[in-house]
C-alpha cells in the first residue's frame, strides 16, 4: 500500500512541477517587438471590464490587473487559462484588431499538448472578435485535447477583447 502512496505522492509532486516550456515569456515579448521591447502597461480590471472578461472566460479573471505591451497598432499579451487542471501560459499578439500570432509558451498538463503545434494555432491567424465576443470562425478541435482547445480559444477571444478595450479607451 505504501508503494501506492509513493506513486500518488510522486504524481502529485510531479504534476505540481512538471511543465514543458516551449518559449520563455520574456523571449516571446522580445520576438514580438524585434528586440526593442516597449515598457509594459497595466490594465486594471474593474466594473464592466470585469463582467465582460467573466463572460469570455466563464469565471472571474482571478487578477486585478493585466500587464501588456503595446506599440502602435500591435499589442502583446501573456495570458493563462486552465485546461483540465493546470494553467496553459500563452502568448498572443494582436495587430489591427486581428490575431497575428498565438503561441503556447508553457504547457503543464499531462495530455493535450498537441495544441502547441502550428497546425492548430495557425487557425487563429487573422481571427477577429464579433459583437457577441465570439471569434469570427470555428476552430477545429483535437480529439483528446478538448479542454486545452477550449482554453486557448478563450484566451484568443480575451486578447482580442482586451486589445479593443485599450485601443478605444480614452
Amino acid at each position, binding site marked *: 500500500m505504501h508503494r501506492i502512496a*509513493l506513486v500518488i505522492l510522486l504524481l502529485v509532486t510531479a504534476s505540481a512541477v512538471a511543465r514543458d516550456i516551449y518559449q520563455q515569456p520574456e523571449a516571446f515579448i522580445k520576438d514580438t517587438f524585434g528586440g526593442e521591447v516597449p515598457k509594459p502597461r497595466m490594465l486594471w480590471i474593474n466594473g464592466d471590464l470585469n463582467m465582460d472578461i467573466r463572460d469570455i472566460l466563464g469565471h472571474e479573471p482571478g487578477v486585478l490587473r493585466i500587464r501588456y505591451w503595446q506599440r502602435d497598432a500591435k499589442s502583446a499579451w501573456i495570458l493563462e487559462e486552465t485546461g483540465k487542471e493546470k494553467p496553459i501560459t500563452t502568448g498572443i499578439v494582436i495587430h489591427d484588431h486581428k490575431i497575428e500570432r498565438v503561441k503556447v509558451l508553457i504547457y503543464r498538463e499531462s495530455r493535450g499538448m498537441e495544441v502547441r503545434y502550428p497546425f492548430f494555432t495557425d487557425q487563429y491567424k487573422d481571427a477577429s472578435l464579433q459583437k457577441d465576443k465570439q471569434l469570427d470562425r470555428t476552430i477545429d478541435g483535437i480529439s483528446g485535447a478538448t479542454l486545452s482547445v477550449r482554453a486557448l480559444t478563450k484566451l484568443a477571444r480575451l486578447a482580442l477583447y482586451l486589445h479593443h478595450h485599450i485601443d478605444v479607451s480614452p
Partner: protein
Amino acid sequence: MYLWHRYMGLTAAVFVVILAATGISLNHTETLKLDSHMITSGTLLDWYGITAPKNPVGFAIDDHWISQVGQRLYFDEHELQDISGRLIGVARLNDILVIAVQEHMLLTTLTGQLVERLGDAEGVPAGMQAITRDGNSLLVRAAHGTYVTDSEFITWQKIAPPPTDWPEPTAIPASLYQRLAQQYLGSVLSAERVVLDIHSGRILGTWGVYVMDTAAGLFILLAAAGIWLWAKRAR
C-alpha cells in the same frame, strides 16, 4: 462443464459488479465531477499514506501570515494561486503585498486578493533568494546579484548589495499549521483516483492488480465455457 461454468460465474459476479460500477463512473467522470471531488476521509488518506508536509514556513506581516505547506501558498487560511517554488520573502509596498517564491512574485491586496502574478516576462530576476523593502522600492537578492525595482515593477536595476538585513522565513504557529494541514489533506486525493484504483485493483497494491488480472482471466474462461456449452447444445 455446467458446474464449472456455474461456479466461475458466481465467482466472477462480484468482480463484474465492481468493474461495471467503477467503469460506468469513470465513463462519466466529468458529469459526476469525480476529478474535482476530493477525499477528506482520514481512513482513505491513511490507507494511501498521505500526510501533510512537515516544517511549514511563513512570514508574518501586519496581522497576517503568508505560509507555505509543501508547494502550496496560503494567505492566512486562504490558498493562493498554484505556484511552484520555495517561499523566499514577503514585503509590503504601499497597499500591495509582494509574495516572492524563487522564480515568481505574487502581488496581492492587503486582504490577499491577487493583483498580478509576475515572472521572467515582467523582468523578475531568476533564482530569487530574499526580498526586502527599501522606502518605496523593493530590493531583491537573486542568484546573479541584487536588484531594485520601482513600485510598479516595470524597471529592474542591478545594484551593489546594500548592507541590509534580509528577512528569513520562520515556523508558523502550530494552530495555523493544523488548519492548513487539514486543507492540504483535503486537496490531494481525488475521487477519480480512488475509483481508478478500485477498477484496476491497485487499491490493494500489487496483489490487488493480480486479483483483477485473475478475474479477467476468469471472464475469458467463462465466455469460452459458455460458448462451448451453447455449441454443444446446438449440435
